[in-house]
């Protein structure tokens, strides 16, 4: 018995328990999407500048102006409408193709099971939020993604669809008049396209914050695919399972 025990522990010492978190395809889609979406947002900004009329105001007081002069100047935005359009209408294809492949893969591989919110997700997402804000200690159990992630990553899929649809409504409002109609008209489509873009930027900021907060083991899984299960986590996993 004693011999066996020592053998086991030495094996454990040389072995790592890992979970295959992100399949290779999803890692590719993720890392292609990041620069492509960045180019889309940047080129979209160059286009938006030419008629930058949106703002949030209460009464006659402007709270946020999209965007202030200094912001444009810092990013070298002014007078690049043509450049913005040429990049936007080329990279849009990459964004669409990558998006379609990602969704198709998620459906056919069964990964959607870990991604779509279920009947517990909305309650759990609230608990996750309270936990993340250090209000509550309790953290609901999770599979690949927690409930808040499920909702966020499913929302981002619908946001992508919305961007493509509203994009086509702006791009060809006569030929795709039914898409423009679905969006509530040409002007509405332009507003929606803009709001969704602001949404990506906010998503990105929260995403980066969470990734940094969660740490290296989680981050490297989107590169290597593997996440190491630490011994103490293993125990709690067994308990929960």
């Amino acid at each position, binding site marked *: 018995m004693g011999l066996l025990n020592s053998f086991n522990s030495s094996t454990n010492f040389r*072995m790592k328990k890992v979970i295959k978190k992100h399949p290779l395809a999803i890692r590719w889609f993720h890392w292609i999407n990041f620069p492509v979406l960045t180019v889309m947002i940047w080129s979209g900004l160059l286009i938006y500048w030419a008629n930058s009329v949106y703002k949030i105001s209460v009464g006659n007081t402007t709270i946020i102006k999209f965007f202030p002069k200094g912001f444009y100047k810092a990013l070298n935005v002014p007078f690049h409408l043509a450049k913005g359009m040429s990049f936007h209408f080329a990279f849009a294809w990459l964004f669409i193709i990558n998006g379609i492949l990602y969704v198709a893969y998620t459906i056919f591989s069964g990964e959607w099971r870990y991604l779509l919110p279920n009947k517990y997700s909305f309650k759990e997402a609230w608990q996750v939020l309270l936990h993340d804000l250090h209000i509550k200690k309790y953290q609901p159990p999770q*599979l690949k993604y927690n409930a808040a992630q499920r909702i966020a990553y499913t929302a981002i899929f619908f946001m992508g669809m919305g961007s493509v649809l509203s994009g086509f409504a702006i791009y*060809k409002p006569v*030929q795709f008049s039914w898409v423009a109609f679905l969006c509530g008209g040409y002007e509405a489509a332009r507003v929606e396209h803009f709001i969704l873009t602001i949404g990506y930027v906010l998503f990105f900021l929260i995403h980066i914050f969470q990734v940094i907060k969660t740490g290296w083991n989680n981050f490297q899984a989107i590169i290597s695919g*593997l996440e190491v299960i630490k011994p103490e986590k293993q125990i709690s996993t067994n308990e929960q399972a």
Partner: protein
Amino acid sequence: MSRHNFFDKRTKEISNSSYRRKMIFSFLIFAVLVAAGIFAWKWLNHQPTEQGALKPLRKTLEANEKILQSTFDTSKKSKVYTEKDAVKNVRVNGLVGMEKTIDTSTWRLQVVRAAGDTLKLSLDDIEKLPKVHVIFDFKCIEGWSQVTHWAGVPLKTFMDYYHLNTQEKMNYVGLQTVDKKYYVGIDMPSALQSQTILCYEMNNKPLPMNQGYPLRLIIPVKYGIKHLKQLGTMYFSNQKPPDYWAERGYDYYAGL
């Protein structure tokens, strides 16, 4: 799927050394990909420009145009509005090629039927043709739009009336301002769409000078850059006629 299944299916034990090997391998591949991405971006931005746009992007714009033109349906019209939707203060944009005054007693629309065969028409000649009103959401490539009210003769009616049948079979119409400083090219299907008019009235009055008096193009299936003002010369071609904004990096087609 239960929680248990997820962890069972995806969890395995691997040795430290094979874990380390896997890590180094994935990060190496990742670094190569990042480098490739940066290289591709630099390469793209150092490509020569063609008509004001980087060559690969210009080729993509042309491919987009081909795809979208093949699905273009002339029966699809820009949404029609009523007179009360139309704004009174119509935005003025684009001053290239605009003269301060034009004398319509000497102004003639020059329709080049073929080299050395030019039809010269007065404003009266054009105004006596059937007039249609077009009230639509005028869209500027900058992003703003405005419901505006125009009237004139449909280009198709005009071309039929002057027996420009062989010209209708050509690929493009070219237009130039009186001083030839602004010029556009338009694909024939869009030019012959029923809402495309040679326009001489705005809000039931003759065109103001800054809106293109005496004659301009109104083509609701295109961005405003194609709605050439102070029309002087019209010609036909199977090759793309020069286009002022397309030479400055914009999409040639500019169709909606």
